[in-house]
């Protein structure tokens, strides 16, 4: 039963199993284990980023395709929900319509970009996705009449998902709509993650791996490489858009900085590589570590920076705003020394 749920792709490492179970338990019981607005915010962000990073892993780790447009799809899903909620009024129908529209739009856009650039080399695809994604980001921030421009959009979601909706108490925690909303995010993320696991462990996923290893041979065996790559791109884009929709439902706000920026793209890259490319579980580990670090490590750096106040250069290097520097260094080192990331290391030890 459990093996079926995981599509036969077991963690294959004792430590990894422990870590994954701990993360699952912590996320599943987050409202009760870590009460408080900020920790719930962090937990929801981890759920969403796990799905986003896992969908990126389907491209990068399993198909060997580098795309820089992943946040664009994420943003499409988020803006789908935001626009639907703005124009259709608050209600579950708006959420559903927006989510589906975002996912379909993302898949179609991915198909178009793929048709253009997947038949040539991987580098072409990387460059074209970068160009298209930045153009879309600029367009969104300029079309302020439709998208709210730089300020983004605030909208209402159904009352059942907001803190104003109260159900009563459970284990000393008052159950509000916010907690229901969290569980919506959690279960949707879990389902999407299991779906991705299903995809990469299917015959289709097997072909993707073959193409990653040697596209020339895969073509020679008779698989239409372009077709498979395009399909993988579309699937990955659609799942990223769904993650974006969840993000929009959770935050009740979308803006170019939170959904489309190149910084988020870099974050996704860092999470995939540090967690472990081509493992799916790497997305779980990577996203969890990264989001926790983003929220809590920076405070530590601030403490360290003020402790080293008198020294030259050290405080600037330890400044909380400079944490990307250290992540960048870690990223380069992991590409060289742990190409399979944390998950790969853990699996190698057993």
């Amino acid at each position: 039963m459990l093996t079926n749920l995981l599509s036969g792709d077991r963690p294959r490492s004792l430590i990894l199993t422990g870590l994954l179970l701990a993360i699952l338990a912590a996320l599943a019981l987050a409202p009760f284990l870590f009460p408080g607005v900020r920790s719930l915010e962090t937990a929801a962000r981890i759920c969403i980023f796990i799905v986003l990073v896992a969908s990126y892993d389907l491209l990068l780790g399993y198909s060997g395709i580098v795309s820089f447009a992943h946040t664009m799809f994420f943003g499409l899903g988020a803006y789908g929900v935001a626009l639907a909620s703005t124009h259709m009024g608050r209600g579950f129908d708006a959420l559903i319509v927006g989510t589906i529209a975002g996912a379909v739009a993302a898949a179609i856009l991915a198909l178009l970009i793929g048709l253009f650039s997947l038949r040539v080399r991987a580098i072409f695809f990387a460059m074209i996705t970068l160009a298209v994604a930045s153009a879309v980001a600029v367009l969104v921030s300029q079309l302020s009449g439709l998208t709210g421009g730089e300020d983004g959009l605030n909208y209402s979601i159904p009352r059942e998902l907001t803190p104003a909706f109260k159900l009563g108490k459970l284990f000393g925690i008052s159950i509000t709509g916010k907690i229901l909303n969290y569980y919506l995010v959690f279960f949707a993320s879990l389902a999407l993650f299991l779906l991705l696991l299903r995809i990469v462990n299917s015959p289709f996923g097997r072909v993707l791996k073959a193409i990653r290893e040697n596209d020339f041979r895969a073509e020679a065996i008779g698989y239409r490489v372009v077709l498979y790559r395009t399909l993988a791109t579309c699937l990955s884009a659609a799942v990223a858009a769904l993650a974006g929709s969840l993000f929009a439902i959770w935050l009740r706000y979308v803006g170019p900085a939170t959904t489309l920026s190149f910084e988020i793209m870099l974050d996704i890259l860092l999470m995939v590589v540090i967690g472990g490319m081509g493992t799916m579980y790497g997305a779980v580990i990577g996203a969890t570590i990264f989001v926790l670090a983003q929220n809590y490590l920076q405070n530590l750096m601030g403490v360290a920076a003020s402790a080293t106040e008198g020294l030259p250069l050290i405080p600037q290097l330890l400044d909380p705003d400079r944490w990307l520097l250290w992540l960048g260094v870690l990223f380069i080192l992991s590409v060289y020394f742990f190409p399979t990331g944390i998950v790969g290391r853990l699996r190698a030890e057993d």
Partner: protein
Amino acid sequence: MTTAAPDHAPKYAQLSLPDRIGKAMPLLLVPVLVVLGFLSIGSTSSWLTLTVSGLAMGMMIFIMASGLTLVFGLMDVINFGHGAFISVGAYVGISALVALESWTGVPSLLLNVAAVLAAAVAAMCVTGALGWGFERVIVRPVYGAHLKQILVTVGGLIVIEQMIHVIWGPDEIYLTRPEMLKGAVTFAGTAIEKYRLLAVVFGLVLFVGMRLVLKRTKIGLIVRAGVQNGEMVEALGYRLRLVFIGVFVAGSALAGLGGVMWGLYQEVITAGMGEEMMILVFIVVIIGGLGSVEGAFIGALLVGLLQNYVAFLEPKLALISNIALMTAVLMWRPQGMMPVVKAK
């Protein structure tokens, strides 16, 4: 009975006229775009201003893109860190200009241009050295693995950009151009900024110089042969590695030069400026065809001109216009206008 070789008269087949036009097509695109711009803008003076600024922008983008495309053509390495070199070049150059206040503040053309040249040289030295280190530390372990190259050079981009914040602080820096490069000259009733003219001249000189080096010198011959077939060049006894490091350093230095020029053009520099420029640089490299200096030159002029014309006619569509241009070119020639590298 003597056996004679079969009669055959060797013929040199001339390219047919359509073929020759097809080869020259990209060259015609720039004048076509200029004429189209003239027709759609209508007023001569605005058109002239926009054309000059478009050409200036194009030249600067070309300077940034040429190094990237050469490195790619020669060694099949894509360097996403190129954008960071642009920013570093701008910061170093502007710091040099600030240090040379006594030269930039006086209205003497000689001293002003000398200051700008000194800044450019400083920037090129630093980014060239940075490029040398980058190649040794970051790129060398991942030759031949595109996926890792992209990842690692993006990592390098992040680290260098963050280091700029550490060294120069997190805020953008505003600057003023040297005295004699401020203001505009009036030509045919149109005010044209002096600096833009300088940029156009500078870019042209650089392009002609690059072409001469590539076409007329032995090192250029080796570089071009290396792009065509590196293995063969090595078999003939040339140490292509050394040539390549030279090209990588030169390309990084050019990125730094482009950064200084762009910073003076915008009169503001930020650590993220290189990253923003990279998007245009990539579009140019894609349009031109990977590995082609001429293609990058034409592509850069097209992008610069189109961006300026469209920004005047429909401000919101400026960036989209470049994507549209890229799409159109790729529909016409999927490998870019003048690809040198065979699609592998």
